């Protein structure tokens, strides 16, 4: 394939908007509890000293507290740091309210995660007001309709990648555009690792070819990028940096998974199996609710010494029954060659297939089993998760 290599920056008007909820979980907690506003707080998986910080507030970030730090490290940097437990329902409610509000502007609203949305406003009436005006209006409506402490950074650009880059230029509460007229100036102020998708290893690849900053990256001929990435990725980067769209792909669902970080290290398989039962119950309920079965089970284990082990097994038969999935997941766990304290456990189902009429099994009554599992799901939906769970 011959790739065009003399492409200029996209001259089309900016119609993509990227919205990023600043310090999402911590900000929502401060919205809920007015006494926490303006104070350094952090949401952590556990409040114990070794608990992992998953969201520091804007005030906590000023002390150098970052995502991934331990609670004890955070408290060393800021002794008055307040640690909060995560409340997923709260965050999900805010996400849904925000999503509903954003759908007033366009029906092309894509949530990229719990705290990020992409809006395509091309040919929508809202864009006639001007993208900056829409951005300002969204900020005002968020304060009025969702919460006055909730702040978002908004990025506007001709493509998704640059809209995301623009949204991280001024945090919190930013509103920036990257377009044909200012891209060179903005690129000049960015380092390679400021770009989403470029971290140390990719930066090293680029450095090897004499690309040390974003301006070098933009000016690099196509052959150089191809040599750096040794794949079609070089071409994608060539287009992204020129404001051309390459990221408007909706990736289909390939797996369902659940993970759990243990509050204390556990080593023995008998100690881990109750957690595995719960993970399998949750994951398989989501799988069935979405109308899928699976032909593969994957298990991942993170240890306290930061090492990692995982294994996936594919099957001929279709799996949907939590008891069977648990049995297979347990078998995989038994094959783990390490007996070390476990930090995190994750299980997922892959090779998904839509639930249709089942293949008749010679020795098993699949239909009966399906009816039983459906009944268990109904009971759990009525009375709450884990009211009925498979025995180990």
């Amino acid at each position, binding site marked *: 394939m011959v790739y065009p290599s003399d492409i200029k920056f996209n001259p089309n008007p900016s119609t993509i908007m990227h919205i990023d909820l600043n310090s999402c979980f911590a900000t929502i907690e401060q919205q809920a*509890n*007015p*006494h926490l506003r303006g104070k350094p707080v952090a949401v952590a998986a556990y409040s114990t000293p070794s608990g992992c910080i998953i969201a520091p507030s804007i005030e906590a970030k000023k002390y150098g507290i970052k995502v991934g730090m331990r609670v004890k490290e955070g408290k060393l940097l800021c002794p008055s*740091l*307040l640690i*909060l437990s995560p409340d997923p*329902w709260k965050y999900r*409610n805010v996400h849904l309210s925000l999503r509903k509000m954003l759908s007033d502007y366009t029906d092309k609203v894509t949530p990229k995660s719990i705290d990020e949305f992409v809006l395509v406003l091309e040919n929508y009436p809202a864009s006639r007001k001007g993208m900056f005006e829409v951005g300002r209006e969204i900020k005002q409506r968020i304060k009025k309709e969702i*919460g006055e402490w909730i702040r978002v950074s908004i990025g506007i650009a001709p493509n998704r990648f640059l809209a995301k880059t623009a949204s991280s230029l001024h945090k919190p509460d930013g509103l920036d555009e990257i377009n044909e007229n200012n891209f060179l100036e903005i690129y000049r102020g960015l380092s390679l690792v400021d770009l989403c998708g470029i971290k140390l290893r990719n930066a090293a690849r680029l450095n090897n070819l004499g690309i040390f900053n974003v301006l070098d990256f933009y000016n690099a001929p196509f052959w150089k990028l191809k040599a750096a990435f040794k794949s079609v990725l070089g071409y994608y980067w060539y287009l992204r940096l020129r404001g051309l769209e390459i990221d408007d792909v909706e990736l289909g669902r390939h797996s369902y998974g659940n993970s759990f970080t243990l509050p204390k290290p556990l080593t023995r398989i008998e100690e881990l199996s109750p957690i595995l039962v719960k993970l399998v119950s949750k994951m398989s309920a989501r799988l069935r609710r979405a109308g899928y079965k699976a032909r593969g089970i994957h298990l991942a284990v993170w240890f306290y010494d930061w090492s990692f082990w995982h294994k996936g097994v594919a099957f001929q038969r279709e799996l949907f029954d939590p008891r069977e999935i648990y049995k297979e997941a347990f078998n995989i766990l038994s094959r783990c060659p390490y007996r070390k304290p476990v930090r995190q456990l994750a299980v997922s189902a892959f090779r998904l297939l839509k639930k249709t009429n089942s293949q008749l099994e010679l020795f098993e009554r699949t239909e009966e089993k399906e009816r039983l599992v459906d009944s268990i799901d109904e009971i759990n939906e009525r009375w709450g998760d884990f*009211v009925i769970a498979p025995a180990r």
Partner: protein
Amino acid sequence: MIEKISTPVSVSLNFDHKKRRVYPKFLIWEGKIYSVEKIGLHHTYRVGRTLFHVFSVASKSLFFRLVLNTETLHWRLEEISDGLPE
């Protein structure tokens, strides 16, 4: 300091039909009346089919997490906090 508790609580809930707003006005906990000065957030969650409404509210000095079970219409106080570090 944040304290997780789970205790029944008396709550006065108002509905303003003109503004279409529902909000807790005051609560009585351990014999003391706390008037609600600010509603931080209102959200919902389900356990099975039962819907719970959560009002995160603040009095002058304390924060309260009030939870209404829509099946029994009973309130529980699940968390209090003064916003100060431990």
